[in-house]
C-alpha cells in the first residue's frame, strides 16, 4: 500500500512535458468510503495541486460531493459514514487520530451549492468565524479583515454601504460571493466548492468563475461542476468520477481533447446515458 505521498501512482499527473512541476497540496491514497453498506468511493488515489483549480465531473450520484467532503472531514457529521484510507494535506494525514476535524475545516474552507449565508448582517457573516477563531479582535483589525475578504470576493463595491443589512437580503449571486468572502476570511489553504454556480444566473456565474481564477493565485481550489464548459473555462485539472471510481484524472485539455478512457469520452461528448 502506498503511504508515501510523493509516490507517483497511476492516477497522478504525468509530468513528462517540460511544464513546471506544480506543488502537491493534497494527496489521497486508497480512499474508500461507505455509507452503511453502500460502498460509495472505491480506492481513490489522487494528487491535488496548489495554485490550481481542479474540477470534479461525472454523472449524478457518482460520488463527487462525497469525495469533496472527505477532504475537510465533513463526512464525519453523517452518522453512517466510515472512511478508510489516507488524505494527506501538507504531508499530514487528516484522518490520523491526533488530528482534530475542526482544525481541518478551518484550513480547508467549503462553499456550497445553495448560497447559505447566516441570517445575520453582512459584516457578521464575514467576521463571525475569524472572531471565534481568535484571528482578530473586535475593532479595527476586524473591520480590515472584513473589508479585505469582501474585496477579494469582489463584493466590496456592492455592499460597502450596507454592511449592517442582513446577508440574506442580497441576490443569489451576491450571497454566493458573500459565502466565498466568509470562507476566505478564515484564511484557509484550500477551498472546496460543490457546484458553486448551479443555482446562479449566467452573469453571476461569470463573476464567480473570474473570482475562482483570481483566488487560485493563493489557494488550491477544488470544484464540482456539471457544466462541461465551466470545467473547460476555469479548471487546470479535471477528474472524471463514475459510480464511485475515479476513472480518469489529467490536465483539463487532455480530458477534453484527448481522453484516455472510453467512458470519459462518452461522458464529455454527451453520449453518456
Amino acid at each position, binding site marked *: 500500500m502506498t503511504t508515501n505521498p510523493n509516490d507517483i501512482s497511476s492516477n497522478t499527473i504525468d509530468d513528462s512535458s517540460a511544464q513546471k512541476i506544480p506543488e502537491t497540496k493534497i494527496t489521497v491514497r486508497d480512499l474508500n468510503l461507505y455509507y452503511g453498506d453502500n460502498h460509495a468511493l472505491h480506492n481513490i488515489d489522487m494528487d491535488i495541486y496548489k495554485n490550481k483549480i481542479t474540477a470534479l465531473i461525472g454523472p449524478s450520484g457518482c460520488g463527487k460531493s462525497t469525495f469533496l467532503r472527505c477532504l475537510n472531514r*465533513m463526512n464525519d457529521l453523517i*452518522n453512517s459514514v466510515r472512511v478508510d484510507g489516507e488524505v494527506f494535506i501538507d504531508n499530514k494525514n487528516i484522518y490520523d487520530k491526533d488530528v482534530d476535524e475542526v482544525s481541518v475545516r478551518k484550513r480547508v474552507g467549503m462553499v456550497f451549492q445553495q448560497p447559505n449565508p447566516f441570517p445575520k448582517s453582512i459584516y457578521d457573516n464575514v467576521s463571525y468565524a475569524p472572531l471565534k477563531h481568535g484571528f482578530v479582535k473586535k475593532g479595527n483589525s476586524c473591520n480590515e479583515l472584513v473589508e479585505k475578504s469582501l474585496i477579494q470576493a469582489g463584493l466590496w463595491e456592492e455592499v460597502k454601504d450596507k454592511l449592517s443589512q442582513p446577508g440574506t437580503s442580497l441576490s443569489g449571486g451576491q450571497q454566493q460571493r458573500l459565502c466565498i468572502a466568509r470562507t476566505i476570511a478564515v484564511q484557509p489553504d484550500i477551498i472546496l466548492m460543490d457546484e458553486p454556480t448551479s443555482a446562479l444566473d449566467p452573469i453571476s456565474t461569470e463573476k464567480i468563475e473570474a473570482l475562482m481564477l483570481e483566488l487560485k493565485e493563493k489557494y488550491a481550489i477544488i470544484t464540482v461542476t456539471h457544466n462541461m464548459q465551466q470545467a473547460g473555462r476555469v479548471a487546470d485539472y479535471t477528474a472524471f468520477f463514475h459510480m464511485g471510481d475515479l476513472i480518469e484524472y489529467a490536465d483539463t485539455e487532455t480530458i477534453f481533447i484527448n481522453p484516455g478512457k472510453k467512458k470519459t469520452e462518452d461522458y464529455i461528448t454527451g453520449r453518456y446515458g
Partner: protein
Amino acid sequence: MKNINNKTLSDNPFYDPSLSKRHSKARRFKIFTITCIVFALSFLVFFLGDMIVKGLPAFQQSYMQIDVSYNDKTIASTRKAIDKKYRRIVSRAWLRNIPNQVEESPELMNTTQSTWVLVNHQVDQYMKGHYFKIKSKELKIIEDMHAQGKLQLQFNRIFFTQGDSKIPENSGLKSAIIGSILTLLVTMVVAFPMGVMTAVYLEEFADDNRWTQFIEVNINNLAAIPSILFGLLGLAVFINLFGLPRSSPLVGGLTLALMTLPIIIVSSRAALRSVPDSIRQAGYGLGLTKVQVVQDHVLPLAFPGIMTGSIIGLAHAMGETAPLIIIGMIAFIPDSPGSIFEAATVMPAQIFTWAGMPERAYIERTAAGIMVLLSVLISLNALAIILRKKFEVKW
C-alpha cells in the same frame, strides 16, 4: 353536422355528462363541513355567552352610603358603628374590618364619617335582580336608599384584592392569582431550561442509537400520561419522599414542570429541526465547533419556535387542576401566599372550589373566575403569536 339540436350538444368539446353529478357531490360535502364548523362555533358561542352573562355581574358589587362612627366602643364591638336598622344589610366582613381601617388612618378615631359600605350578598343579589327572601322592613330601607342613590352597584375591587372567604361578598381571586403566578414561575424555571437542553441534546448532539430512541419514546409517552397521575407522582416523590411542604407552589410547580416538560421538548425539537441544515453545514465548513454552531446559529433561529411552544406549555399548565388537587392546592386560602413554600391555591382550583358552593354569589364568582382565567390564557396565546411574528421579521 346533421341537425341543429345535436349540434349544440356534440359541438361543446367540454361537455361531460358525469360532471354535474360530481359537482353536486362536492357541494354536499362542502355543506356538511360548513355545518360542522357552525356546530362547533355555536357551542363555543353558547359557552362563552353563558359564562359572560353569569360572570359579568360579579365584577360589580353593591355598596351603601351610611354614617359610620369610629370610637373605642365601636372598635370593641363593631356592630355598633352603624345605625341599628342597617345591621342586617351591611356585610359582616366590612364591619370586621373597622379596627384595621382605624389602624391605617388614625385620624378617623372619634369621628363619624359618611362612607360607602359593603352590603351583604343577599342584598347584593337583590340589587342584581335576583329574588331573595329579605324581610319587608329591610326591603323598605333598601328601596329608599336605592331611590336616593345611596345604594348602588360599583366596580368590585374586592374580587381582585381579597383571597377566598367564607363570606361570599368578601371573597376574591387574589390569592389564587398569586398562587398561580408562583406555581408557574417554579414550573418555568424548572421546565424551560431542562426542556430546551434536552431537545438540544437529542436533536443536535445525540447519535441515533437504541438509547436515544428509548429516551424519545419515553418522552412521547410522558406527554400522553393522564395529568392526575402526575399529581400522584408529585405527592409520592416531592411531598412524601423529599418532604417538601404540602399545598405549596413549589410542589405544584415541580409537578406541573413534569407535565410541561414533554410539550417543551417536543416543540423545541420541532423548532430545531426546522432550522435548515445548510446553516449547520456553513458553520462546520468554517471550522466552528458543535457548541458554537448550535449556540450562535441554530438556537437563535429556533428560538421563536421554542418560545411559542413553551408559552403554550405554560398556558396548558395554568389551566391544569387535577394534579394540583392531589397535592393539596385546593385548600381554603384567604391570605395570599408570600413565598413558594406557603400553602396556596391556583385559579382553576379556586374556580373548582367556588363551583361547589350553593350561594348564588359564588356561582357568579365561578363564572367570573373562568372569564379571568380564559382572558389570561388567550393573552398568553396571543403573546406566543406576537413573539413568533416579531422574531421572524428580525432577519
